[in-house]
């Protein structure tokens, strides 16, 4: 197996997307099938990626490296480790689902819709596999354009406001990261991530670089108080856009913390971990309460995403406190793998919930919770799926939602009882807003004529939700394959984090 798998995974969808766009909407069937074929091929190529991955090693694997911009000493350097691999598979997996889910729903320029998602897929894989900081940045920013178009063209009523807000927020965060990356390049003489990991930095330098990275990643995650773009973007985006946004784009923030902030500026991360932990805990409680009062289903799930992603940031940064209290790094690894599991799980669960909302929206064209009630009477299969994903969102044991949250709460206990106590409040708020949503939408008597006329899932929708349900339960019952893949990489990361660069 000497195929350049990572390049294939990056460029096949991009080229496929361009082909789909050139095919155009006449006939739309052809564009649709080509799009599906490309996304399935990408998923297919990620199978050997997983099976040939050496889970015992923390080193970069499937490495590809050629000179790219010689004057900037930047290489086309791809490679993955245990952090990137699950996220890449999540990306290829979600894209297939998104394309199937939007099979006959999109009426306006459908070929461009599929093309945008395929191009996004390639760029996202590029983000997760870039081992060169400049290449990473190029993929990271290039993604903004297709997402901007997805929300702006196929979104809801206030889509233009939402998409420009999304773009400017993320762009503002990113440019500061760019300045930090250039600064690092000038000191290290290379954009290679491995070189940046070894670069000694003084404390003021680390603090400023950390804050610049923080601006980029905190916006993407998103963390309170820079989260306000997310509810708007989620609500206005088409279903597929929301799924990709929630399932993958938010993960890039967490990925950035793990890939850049922690190993490049470990001392500043240690010094400023209180900031991240505080913001995360605030988000868990405050955003949980905000989610409770939402009347729009998508907005509710969007806020729930912010609360769940706060667990990821908590898991990423609570490690320093654990080491300070217990003196051992074991809890740190637990917290980090909890953060990773939470990211993957949230990718599946929030994606599934957005798809559920999409299913309802396609039928009644409203996302207002008040317009529904007793859906389970007319849509029993759908009701069952929605209840399952709701439970997973609330962190019910046996679903994937439980695993990550449990690991992070467990690890937080070792650092400080109150961290864990506040974080565990999510079990109450999360259950409250999710179950209340389920109660108002799915359960009870049929609320109105619209609901009475609903038709249950068609085969396509059943397939998409069914696959996600299997994944959610499998991860909840047996997360070991996932944690095993990440373990050595996270151990290595903990080592990098604990070595002072001063």
């Amino acid at each position, binding site marked *: 197996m000497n195929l350049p798998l990572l390049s294939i995974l990056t460029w096949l969808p991009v080229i496929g997307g361009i082909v789909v766009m050139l095919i155009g909407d006449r006939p739309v069937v052809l564009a649709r099938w080509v799009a599906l074929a490309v996304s399935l091929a990408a998923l297919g190529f990620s199978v050997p990626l997983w099976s040939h991955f050496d889970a015992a090693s923390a080193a970069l694997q499937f490495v590809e490296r050629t000179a790219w911009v010689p004057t900037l000493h930047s290489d086309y350097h791809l490679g993955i480790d245990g952090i990137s691999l699950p996220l890449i598979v999540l990306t290829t997996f979600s894209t297939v689902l998104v394309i199937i889910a939007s099979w006959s729903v999109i009426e306006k320029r459908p070929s461009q819709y599929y093309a945008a998602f395929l191009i996004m897929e390639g760029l996202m894989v590029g983000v997760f596999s870039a081992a060169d900081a400049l290449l990473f940045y190029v993929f990271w920013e290039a993604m*903004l354009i297709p997402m901007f178009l997805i929300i702006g063209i196929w979104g809801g009523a206030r889509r233009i406001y939402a998409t420009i807000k999304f773009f400017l927020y993320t762009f*503002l965060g990113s440019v500061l990261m760019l300045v930090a990356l250039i600064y690092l390049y000038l000191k290290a003489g290379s954009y290679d991530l491995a070189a940046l990991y070894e670069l000694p930095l003084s404390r003021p330098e680390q603090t400023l670089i950390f804050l610049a990275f923080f601006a980029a990643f905190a916006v993407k995650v998103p963390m309170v108080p820079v989260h306000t773009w997310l509810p708007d973007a989620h609500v206005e985006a088409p279903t597929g856009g929301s799924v990709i946004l929630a399932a993958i784009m938010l993960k890039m923030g967490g990925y950035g913390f793990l890939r850049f902030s922690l190993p490049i500026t470990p001392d500043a991360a240690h010094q400023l971990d209180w900031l991240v932990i505080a913001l995360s805990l605030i988000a868990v409680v405050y955003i949980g309460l905000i989610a409770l009062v939402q009347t729009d289903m998508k907005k509710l799930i969007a806020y729930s995403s912010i609360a769940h992603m706060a667990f990821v940031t908590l898991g990423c940064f609570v490690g320093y406190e654990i080491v300070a209290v217990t003196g051992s790094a074991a809890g740190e690894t637990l917290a980090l793998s909890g953060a990773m599991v939470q990211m993957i799980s949230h990718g599946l669960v929030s994606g599934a919930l957005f798809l559920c909302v999409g299913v309802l929206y396609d039928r009644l064209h409203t996302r207002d919770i008040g317009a529904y009630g007793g859906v389970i009477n007319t849509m029993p299969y759908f009701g069952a799926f929605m209840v399952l994903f709701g439970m997973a969102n609330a962190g019910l044991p046996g679903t994937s939602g439980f695993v990550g949250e449990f690991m992070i709460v467990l690890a937080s206990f070792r650092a400080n009882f109150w961290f864990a106590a506040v974080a565990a409040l999510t079990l109450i708020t999360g259950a409250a807003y999710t179950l209340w949503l389920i109660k108002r939408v799915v359960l009870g008597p049929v609320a109105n004529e619209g609901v009475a006329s609903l038709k249950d899932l068609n085969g396509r929708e059943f397939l998409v939700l069914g696959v996600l349900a299997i994944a959610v339960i499998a991860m909840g019952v047996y997360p070991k394959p996932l944690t095993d893949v990440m373990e050595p990489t996270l151990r290595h990361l903990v080592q990098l984090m604990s070595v002072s660069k001063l």
Partner: protein
Amino acid sequence: MNQILANSLTLASPEIVLACGASLVLLVDAFLTDRQRGISYLLSMVTLALTAVVVASLPEGRNVGFSGMFVVDGVARFLKLAACGTVAAVLLYSRDYLRIRGLFRGEYFVLALFATLGIFVIVSAGSLLSLYMGIEVLALSQYALVAFDRDSSIAAESAMKYFVLGAIASGALLYGISLVYGVSRTFDLAQLAVFVQLGGASNIGLLFGMAFMVAGIAFKFGAVPFHMWVPDVYHGAPTSVTMLVGSAPKFAYFGLILRVLGEGLGGAVAEWQGMLIVLAVLSIAIGNVVAVAQTNLKRMLAYSTISNVGFILLGILAGTSAGYRGALFYTVAYVLMALGSFAMILLLSRKGFEADRIEDFRGLAQHRPWFAWMMLFLMASTAGLPPFVGFFSKLYVIQAVLDVGLTWLAVVAVLFSVVGAFYYLRVIKAMFFETAAGEVVVEASPSFKFLLSLNALSVLALGLWSGPLSDAIAKAFH
């Protein structure tokens, strides 16, 4: 003696070819009827092509002619080739636009060729006098070009503004030159550099003169606070003239600032760096912020030019060779994007319809998806988004600024580029998210469409693979 003269003439052969060609066009055009005007166009193109060939065949390395008045080095050759290509592209782009409006006249070609000659003289100047001569040749051609549509009162008004303000700037520049000459007793840039090295940098008279020269150069570039003419000229001139004024002369001004500040006053970098910082920050800030308020695309692009000039100055003010290279890379990228953006306006314009408002681009993605994507490439690139060339050009200049320790300046620049992103997004928004009020008509010729596509795709290609361009620039500075 004859040998020396022959050498000098050889070095100046591109200028001689160009001047002869321009005169020939002027002469031939007098005998042509309106229907034969294509001959002038062809002759101009041939002149530019011939000139480019002659430039390419000049001897390698740095050569000096006319007792130091005239310099041909890698940078000069690079800038001349770039200017030839740009002017040729402008002529091709503007052919239909001019013809439809009854402006397809020989003067346009003659003036464009003389403007090119001015550019050539500026970038090859070895002395402040030859430099000034080039500036005037270029400036006078541009004044006349802006007023070229003589029935348009708005064009006449903007030409008047341009001329009056330009004359003041030329005066300031000339005053600065005379002060510098008074102190250093030389017009020669190489000798001036020696004078500055030997302690002239602290001479108050020299600094005084330098300040006037910087002001004059800033006016030519259109840097804030000397930018007032830019929006009016860009807006008032016929679009094809705006395209010419907004593209190729940037190469000349880059050459101008490089020759004067980089070479002649290179030893006084600490003194002029502060002035350029003020100009750059103001240009980036005001250019980007005011552009947000524009509804006219030509005016918006004018303010965008101002902010881009600020970025070019960022590269220059670093005062390092990496900075100059970055600034040249930026200039090339900017000219490509400006050419493409104005060409998009030309593409959509037709008789009685200028297509120069942002709303004229509404619904383009629906009716002409290909060109909507081309415009998206151009706008995203100008906004500095990867993977387009505009991103790398910003990267190079910001890197140069960080390298000399001006971190705050880099942060200011990138923050204002976020503001800038907003108004480029507005164009994309109009094209992709809104629907057209009427029908979208594209009447351009196949060669126009081909060149425009090539132009926009090169913005993407040079971003994905910027090696060849940065190598060529590195070689030019070698």
